[in-house]
């Protein structure tokens, strides 16, 4: 308990250090996350739109789930060597599966009657995607990104073993910072993960068309 209480004085005393490590932490976690979004969302949406590749989307997810991030980083040290790039590749591989599979599911699971009605009325495939599938799938696509974001931010801690910096430097270095430092940095990571998650919730609120917001309110009310 004393250690837990001691974490707060540590935070005030080492605020500059924690800020610096937070900066590094965000860089090594958000860059792979953004890369996974840029690749995973369009790929998942496209596969969902043509209703193909379920096997691919699901297998990648399962492999992603089965591989512990620690093992992944250890394997990558062997392949790309030590350093920030190594950590970011590992985190990308961690973030990619949920983003891909949620994006696939989001579009693939849009009611077939709706897309049939849309096509039957003469909407071109691209219009079916932008007017029906993407708006209806948006909340689920964002869910995938949120899952990946929390995963990446928290796992970036382990990336320290690849020498990438970040808050993991503090957490894994009890000798230098004491138990108070370890707890302080760990709390810091937890708050950071929650904050990043909430940023995407906010983003969903801002980006949703009025009709999607209405649907979400209706879902909450039900």
């Amino acid at each position, binding site marked *: 308990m004393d250690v837990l209480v001691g974490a707060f004085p540590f935070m005030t005393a080492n605020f500059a250090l924690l800020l610096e490590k937070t900066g590094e932490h965000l860089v090594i976690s958000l860059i792979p996350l953004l890369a996974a979004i840029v690749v995973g969302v369009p790929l998942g949406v496209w596969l969902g739109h043509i209703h193909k590749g379920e096997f691919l989307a699901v297998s990648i997810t399962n492999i992603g789930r089965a591989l512990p991030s620690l093992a992944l980083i250890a394997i990558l040290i062997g392949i790309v060597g030590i350093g920030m790039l190594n950590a970011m590749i590992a985190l990308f591989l961690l973030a990619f599966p949920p983003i891909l599979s949620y994006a696939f599911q989001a579009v693939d699971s849009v009611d077939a*009657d*709706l897309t*049939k*009605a*849309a*096509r*039957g*009325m*003469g*909407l*071109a495939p691209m*219009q079916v995607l932008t*007017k*029906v599938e993407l*708006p*209806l799938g948006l909340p689920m696509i964002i869910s995938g990104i949120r899952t990946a974001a929390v995963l990446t931010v928290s796992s970036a801690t382990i990336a320290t073993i690849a020498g990438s910096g970040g808050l993991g430097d503090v957490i894994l270095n009890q000798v230098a910072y004491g138990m108070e430092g370890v707890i302080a940095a760990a709390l810091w990571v937890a708050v950071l993960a929650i904050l990043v998650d909430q940023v995407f919730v906010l983003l969903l609120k801002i980006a949703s*068309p009025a*009709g*999607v917001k*209405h*649907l979400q309110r*209706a879902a909450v009310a039900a």
Partner: protein
Amino acid sequence: MTESATTTMPATSTARSTRNSSIVFDNVTKTYPGQTAHALDSLSIEVRSGELVCLVGPSGGGKTTALQLVNRLVDLSSGEIRIGDTNIMDLSPIELRRTIGYAIQQSGLFPHYTVAENIATVPTILKWDRKRIEARTKELLELVGLTPVENWLKRYPGQLSGGQQQRVGIARALAADPPVMLMDEPFGALDPITRVAVQDEFLDIHRAVGKTTLFVTHDIDEAIKMADRIAILKPGGLLAQYDTPAEVLARPADDFVAEFLGAERGLKRLALTTVAEVLAAGRDRRGSSPVAAAAGSTEAGNPVSAAEWPEVSATMTLREALSLVSAAHAQGARVMDAGSHLGDVTLHELICPPADDPARTTEGARI
């Protein structure tokens, strides 16, 4: 069989209205990949301009396939489909579909679009200007009876009842004023009471706008009520009979059709004629004393005298009137219209309607 053979292809392209929007199936066959049996086998029918034709039949009869071939959601295996004078293969699928109204079961409304946005779907992709879209949307909501329109424009489908959703679905299908309408079991998911109401409204709309309509239903009663002509498909996608409801009910082409129509075929026929028609025909035959015949039988120990016969409205079908007469243990019914007594019809007239007259036109059957 000769019946259906002669009526399968009615006299083509004669006496058309100025704009020909008939749908012609010319020897149309569809076989889905990987299947040996045909989904639709050499279908040749013509839906005349302005006509409402119901495709009925059991599952596996290919009725939805036939419908989706018209807007090319399904590709033809062989044969030809023409709308007006245009072969549907001469247009791109997207172009073609924008000239065809399409309504499906459960309405297919986009849940994230308001009523107004749903109706405006096709006009929007056709890039109509905003004023025109707005005016058209309001006009259509009035047409389908969702008034005052301001109350409905901004609602979402989730806030509407099934019947209201289906009305919006019809409005959406009519939005760009397509000459042709395809309807795939549009009322299939509605409860019986709502279903009857929406059917009646749709018939009114159909009479008002006169779109050539192909209407898929598995409900033979719905087909009898709605259709100018009925095409009955049997498993394997073969056309069993194509004729008016009265003719199909009076003379089923084969055992399959007779069985499909069911044991109540004779009663179903009574739903094609209204009490008013019987009354008119009765006056022609008997002159001025319509009750004379019935009065005689009342004296023969019948429990209810003519004066106590149940009252029926002139617009009722014979089937409905007969139901009331039977419930009252009477020998006939008093026909009322807006409170005035128009005359009486006897039980005999109700069960032997003038509908048996083969010269009666399709239009006559619908009024």
